[in-house]
């Protein structure tokens, strides 16, 4: 019997599509990021300069924006993991009949796109929204607490939007863990928290890593959620890119901002690959 060989014809259409529609514009951006916009015009001029990159890294404003975006993305990962891990565990181990429904509900915001859930969140967080409205009804406050236009508001929106990206890979990995392992640990006298820390968590590590990477990248590049919930007061890196690309029309600089974001993600990917390799080396 012959093993099926490599199927390049299966891969070709997909790779072709991505190459034409994604990689070509991507290369254009790489080139653009080294071009400039002369004084007095919005048209770009071919050149070879690192001016755009220097501007990002020499200006505390952009560095602060970068730091803020990275911190928000890490915070999103942290809280998604904190909330997503127990939920995934419950879905895999406890939910029997509810399982599909719970999964479907969790997927709902992802399927609805960024706009609809964000509009809902605005109605919850706005000065006249549900939280402030309830507090005012209860007589606890006179003037609204600002929730929109704050980092907290954005963080809430990001967690809400990207939690499913954490839960899905966690569920996928945990499903493959035999229940017998936990039972064995318990029978050897381990208490449930120990079982979680010492048995479940390490074995679920690939899922944790996959979920964290997905959530981090999504949070880093997300635009609609921070823009609407931040009301333009909190600049994230994607919002800065948008402002430069779509309002100031300085495309070379906007491209450079996007490239920096991409490099951060690439660095992260390398770290994760390194981590995986370490894992493989270990028995």
């Amino acid at each position, binding site marked *: 019997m012959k093993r099926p060989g490599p199927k390049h014809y299966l891969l070709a259409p997909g790779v072709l599509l991505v190459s034409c529609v994604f990689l070509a*514009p*991507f290369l254009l951006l790489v080139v*653009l990021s080294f071009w400039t916009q002369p004084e007095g015009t919005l048209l770009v001029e071919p050149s070879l300069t690192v001016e755009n990159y220097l501007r990002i890294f020499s200006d505390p404003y952009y560095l602060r924006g970068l730091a803020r975006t990275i911190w928000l993305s890490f915070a999103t990962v942290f809280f998604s993991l904190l909330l997503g891990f127990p939920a995934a565990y419950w879905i895999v181990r406890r939910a029997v009949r509810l399982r599909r429904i719970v999964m479907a509900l969790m997927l*709902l915001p992802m399927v609805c796109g960024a706009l*609809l859930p*964000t509009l809902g969140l605005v*109605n919850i967080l706005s000065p*006249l929204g549900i939280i402030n409205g309830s507090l005012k009804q209860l007589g606890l406050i006179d003037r609204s607490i600002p929730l929109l236009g704050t980092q907290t508001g954005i963080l809430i929106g990001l967690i809400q939007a990207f939690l499913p990206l954490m839960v899905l890979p966690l569920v996928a990995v945990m499903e493959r863990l035999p229940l017998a392992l936990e039972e064995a640990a318990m029978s050897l006298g381990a208490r449930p928290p120990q079982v979680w820390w010492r048995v479940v968590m390490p074995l679920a590590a690939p899922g944790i890593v996959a979920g964290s990477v997905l959530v981090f990248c999504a949070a880093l590049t997300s635009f609609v959620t921070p823009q609407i919930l931040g009301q333009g007061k909190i600049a994230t890196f*994607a919002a800065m890119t948008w402002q430069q690309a779509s309002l100031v029309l300085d495309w070379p600089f906007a491209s450079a901002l996007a490239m920096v974001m991409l490099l951060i993600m690439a660095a992260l990917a390398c770290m994760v690959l390194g981590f995986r390799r370490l894992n493989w080396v270990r028995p």
Partner: protein
Amino acid sequence: MRRVLLGGVTALVVLFTVAPLIVLVFSSFDDGKFFRFPPREFSMRWFEAAFASVEYRSSLLNSAVVAVVATLISVVLGTAAALGLQRTALRSRAALEMVLLAPLTLPLVIWAIALLQIYSWLGVGGTFWGLALAHATFTLPFSVRVMLATLSAIEPGLELAARSLGARPWRAFARITLPLALPGIATSAALSFFISFNDVIVSTFIAGSSWMTFPVRLYSQLRGQGIDPTTLAIGTMIIASILIVVALTELFNRKASRA
């Protein structure tokens, strides 16, 4: 006690993810132009307005057509690519996988502007296929991911067995692998469809005047005169239709598992 705690956390998580949508549905029945809590008067007027508006209807239809075509491309190419990846040597596999997942890495705004320039050079700006291919491209990574996960769970020996019993490759695939992969195909189709259907950013730049989609219309209004509550009503209907699809799949799955 611990069980209750775990269940409680899960319930909270579910509530947290779904709450904004519940509020959205709730506020689409509020009479006011800008939602405030406590709400003032119950009203169906935004739903009536939604059905009365020709523009909303035609843009919803545009969105649906673009999403269906993009989904078809994305699912077919994604499934093929996942099959191909599964049968590729480990070394080149990582690189190819990278390429296929790459569209997730750039902010869509800047990508859309660059794509618009390329389309313009090629003279396909504003065309249907330009838009559909763009949508297929950014939904493709989701299809590939889901299909890779699905295929990896299918025992490869099954198809090999069928072939060793004399089935031709295509037949073995169609009779063995395809039926087993059906839930995954359905999932990636649903994901692709709704991600395409709800896209704002790419369509704002790429969609021509003949293919103005619903979210573009919504967003262009949101930034001018304000949130037209009509759009909240339409959002409510979109959420309702998603729930119906989910419920139907659930029913279908239950029947299938009983059979």
